């Protein structure tokens, strides 16, 4: 699953968000988007009525098409939950229900289970559609501002901001060292791979530790040491 999670693509799409003036949901205020997302998740998952989920999905899909978010990341959003959802749906279809509709060897598919699993698929893609509308049409720093507006604790918002800022950097460092290790034959065999990955991750952690001290010094030097636990 991880092989598909290329963080550099996220970074590219974030840059696109800053450079392009989109349409549809791109023009909507982030606070409204987060509010809408919250309402949709509560209705979709909290109330959990299939008809309601279908309505929300069919409202969301045209909005996605109208807003035209970056294709690659949108596809990732729709593909990523596909296999876990499929496995869960199959599991539900064959282990719950009372009315058999299909029998394949020892496995029986039940009508109620099938309806339940279709409902699960519906809810998953309803949520995903609205996640696309919220997160792929909004730069992350705008989302953070909106979260702050919603009174999310400052320490969480600050930490999220720094996490977002440095995730890309750490990933780049890791990728660079990983490529160097591969080119030196550091990943021949599974045991070697584990050892090399541990060594690289340890290096990244040590650099992370040093970098955090430098960040603090830089913040203090710029008069930014006001961030404290009282916030």
């Amino acid at each position, binding site marked *: 699953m991880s092989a598909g999670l290329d963080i550099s693509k996220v970074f590219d799409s974030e840059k696109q968000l800053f450079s392009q003036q989109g349409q549809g949901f791109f023009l909507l205020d982030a606070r409204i988007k987060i509010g809408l997302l919250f309402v949709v998740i509560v209705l979709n998952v909290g109330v959990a009525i299939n008809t309601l989920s279908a309505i929300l999905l069919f409202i969301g899909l045209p909005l996605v098409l109208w807003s035209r978010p970056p294709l690659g990341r949108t596809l990732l959003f729709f593909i990523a939950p596909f296999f876990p959802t499929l496995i869960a749906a199959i599991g539900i279809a064959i282990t719950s229900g009372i009315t058999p509709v299909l029998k394949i060897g020892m496995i029986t598919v039940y009508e109620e289970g099938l309806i339940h699993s279709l409902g699960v698929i519906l809810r998953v893609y309803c949520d995903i559609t609205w996640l696309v509308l919220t997160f792929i049409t909004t730069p992350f720093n705008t989302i953070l501002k909106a979260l702050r507006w919603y009174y999310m604790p400052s320490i969480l918002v600050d930490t999220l901001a720094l*996490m977002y800022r440095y995730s890309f950097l750490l990933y780049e460092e890791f990728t660079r060292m990983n490529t160097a290790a591969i080119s030196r034959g550091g990943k021949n065999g599974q045991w070697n791979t584990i050892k090399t990955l541990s060594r690289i991750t340890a290096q*990244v952690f040590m650099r992370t530790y040093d970098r955090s001290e430098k960040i603090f010094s830089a913040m203090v030097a710029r008069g930014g040491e006001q961030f404290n*636990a009282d916030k």
Partner: protein
Amino acid sequence: MHISEGIITGLPAVGYTIVAVGLTAVGVQKMKAFIAENPEKKPLLAMGGAFIFLLSLIPIPAFTGTCSHPAGSPLAAILLGPWIALTLTAMSLFLQAAFFAHGGFSTWGANVITLGVGGAFCGWLAFKAARQAGLSLVVSAALGGLIGDIMTYATAGFSLSLVMAFGPNPQLSFSQYLVAIYAAYLPTQGPIAIGEMFLTGLLIGYVFKQRPEILQELKVVFTKAAIILAVFITLSIPFSDRLYAEDSVLPSVSSEQPAITEEESGMAGMDEAVNEAMAEAAGLAARDPYINLESMGDVWNAVMLLAGAICGFIFGRYWHMLVGEDKKS
């Protein structure tokens, strides 16, 4: 392991979210206390969160031809403590859901409990228990990684079984769902747990080898106070042994005519048995020591009392480095 968006619905989803928000709130308080104590470490928390996020992107081989990613929360708990690891995991899950649709917002609560309680807390407890049992740092960390990973899957399986067993028209009982889900997890997640065990153990080992002061600052390994205490205990063992020997074998030390001589008791030391004998053979008779503690019972007691007071002071001064500081203090 993330439970996908939309899988858990209705009251269970709300319940998991409420519990996760509560746990995260406690974690936020711990983070605030940590920052109040070490303001310079605030970026470290964010970097720790980014590190957990990075770990979830690292593919580790699963020995079965596939690969998956480590949970990361046991390692974070070993390095930063379980509550902070839980909060950082919660934030990391937020980023993963927002960037990759990995996990989700409706299952965020269940995932926080799975990775935070199952991964971070159980991993941390396993690490601490292994350290208490006297296992080495690397082995303890590896055990922490293994148990944390296994408990992550165990908790995830438990959550899913609960939802399915109490869902509409279940065909199996709760325990049967549990067995079925664990059996489905085992072929891939078992090897991944072993991979995480090696990754966590080796990583902590490499950091300890190259930068032990980092682990000391994060209170992962013994600090100076503990080392001083350990040195004192080690040094005091010969003295206590000697005292015990004197008390038990030579009960009348102060009497002029001891009941049993040192030679008779078989407790003669190196000085008496070898050095003094060689010195006398060379014509140099042994003289009395300048400070003869053995003949000065009260002085010896006073010295021991003073040593105890000094060590008590050192322990009292640095106790928080051994067991972690109480927030209220």
